[in-house]
């Protein structure tokens, strides 16, 4: 029931996002100008406008757009002369791969850092990892990517600057993309662990003589990690937007690079399709996160209902 309501909500948002992109494109650009050479004869321009249905009233054009959208038709790329959806779907695995590795990297570093920071609260280590996290949240992704490239490819020559296929190719893009979620997870996990470690049941566990290591990793972490799961999900969605810059810099053949390419070539149907597609992927990920969260923590369902 809860899930179905969320599903309806998600469909509504996708519909709204699509409508906004439609309106923005409608008011601001004339695709015919982009399709024909500047010196094209007038009759040709008029004929093309007519055949593309650009002379129809807004409502009819909008209805046609929605009709196509329902069938999963996101338009036709001027540049590639192919279905935009097909182009995007083809490049999705590369982007998901990048985002997954970025998240794995973020988790591998952030979980130990977050736990240790809380255990060694206000120590030198804690300050260091908090400082690290603060920088991770402030640094612009594109600059971090360039600096990693400068250090590991240009100065040290350890890793390649672009391409996909070898494991070496994914290290730098994943590091750049993972920096922000890593920082966010460190801070949230640390804060949650600090709260949980002060709770009565932890004192009880300690009093029973359980080793401190198990108290922290088993008893405390279990409860402290529930909000982190949501954050990971949300950050995963946000990382898809970050892939735009990272893929462009490292020449990673995913949807982000496709979107930037479309913008540079003023291929508006493809740009529009990319925006709708990425928003949809983001919304689907959020749906899944909500669902998993509901399974993890039964209280959530009740809480959401009350809202």
């Amino acid at each position, binding site marked *: 029931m809860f899930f179905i309501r969320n599903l309806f909500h998600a469909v509504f*948002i996708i519909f709204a996002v699509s409508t906004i992109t439609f309106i923005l494109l409608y008011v601001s650009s004339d695709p015919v100008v982009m399709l024909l050479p500047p010196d094209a004869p007038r009759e040709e321009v008029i004929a093309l406008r007519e055949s593309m249905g650009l002379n129809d009233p807004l409502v009819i054009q909008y209805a046609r757009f929605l009709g196509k959208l329902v069938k999963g038709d996101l338009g036709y790329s001027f540049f590639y002369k192919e279905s935009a959806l097909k182009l995007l779907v083809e490049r999705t695995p590369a982007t998901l791969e990048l985002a997954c590795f970025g998240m794995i990297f973020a988790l591998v570093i952030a979980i130990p850092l977050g736990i240790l920071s809380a255990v060694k609260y206000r120590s030198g280590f804690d300050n260091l990892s908090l400082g690290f996290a603060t920088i991770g949240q402030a640094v*612009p992704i594109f*600059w971090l990517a360039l600096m990693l*490239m400068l250090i590991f490819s240009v100065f040290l020559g350890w890793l390649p600057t672009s391409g996909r296929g070898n494991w070496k190719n994914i290290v730098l893009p994943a590091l750049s993309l993972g920096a922000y979620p890593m920082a966010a997870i460190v801070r*949230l996990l640390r804060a949650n662990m600090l709260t949980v470690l002060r709770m009565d049941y932890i004192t009880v566990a300690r009093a029973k003589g359980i080793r401190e290591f198990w108290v922290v990793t088993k008893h405390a972490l279990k409860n402290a990690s529930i909000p982190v799961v949501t954050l990971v999900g949300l950050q995963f969605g946000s990382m898809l937007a970050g892939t735009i810059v990272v893929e462009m810099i490292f020449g990673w053949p995913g949807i982000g690079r496709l979107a930037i390419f479309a913008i540079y070539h*003023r291929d508006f149907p493809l740009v529009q399709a990319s*925006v709708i597609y*990425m*928003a949809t992927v*983001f919304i689907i990920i959020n749906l899944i996160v909500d669902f998993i969260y509901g399974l993890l923590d039964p209280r959530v369902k009740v809480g959401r209902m009350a809202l």
Partner: protein
Amino acid sequence: MSFLARVPKRVILFSIAIWISILFAFFSPFLSPHDPYKTDLSMRLIPPVFQKGGTWNNVLGTDHLGRDMLSRIIYGARVSLLVGFVSTFIGSVIGVILGLLSGYIGGKTDSVINKLMDIQLSFRVILLAIFVISIVGPSFRNVVIVCGIASWVTYARVVRGQVLSIREKEFIEAARGIGCSTIRILTRHVLPNVFSLIIVISTLEIGRIIVLESTLSFLGLGVQPPTPSWGNMILDGKIYMLQAWWITAIPGSVLLMVVLGFNIIGDYLSDLMDPYMKQLME
């Protein structure tokens, strides 16, 4: 001075960094040693002074067109800070108005504004900005507007949450009782109570907007060359990374310092406030 002693050192240090960048922005013509637009191909790619081949004439070196890096960084502060402050202002005004209305009036208004927030959140900010700018064309004005509109949600969400609790307080009921209009209640009684919170969010948002602006500039969708901005300087340097690391590294470091500064001050301010509000913002 006893007040300053209680403020963490990092906050003081980074406030100074921000004040320096503000000075840069206001007094760029007086502070920059060279004309930031003057190209001189005989002087191209000179390294910073601390590296072999560097000169005191161009302390931070020169770029691929022989322009002085330090002067361009000083002028670049104008773009970043101006976009940062103006867009934050636009975003906060929109966000606060919608947040007040949604929290105070409730009902249909509230659910419409909530839907708007969900829609805005599912457009990732950078994606929306890139999309809109690629349609309307890159210019300073467009960047300011897009960055402003892209940042209203946090304000609206937090203000709404606050208003929901303030609404039930006695002094609001009293104001309503003596016949104050809704607008008067919102502006004279509710707004002052959420104002400090708005300042905290704004401080944190400025950093994000400066990053967004530099990202747009880096993608060629921000302020257009030859006007220097830290983002388009980094873009210039990208092609020359093999020969001249400083063109990408130095403007980026300055950018990072400023963003870090706003974030650290924002974090400090929000630590001073109620922890519950902090939760709301995350």
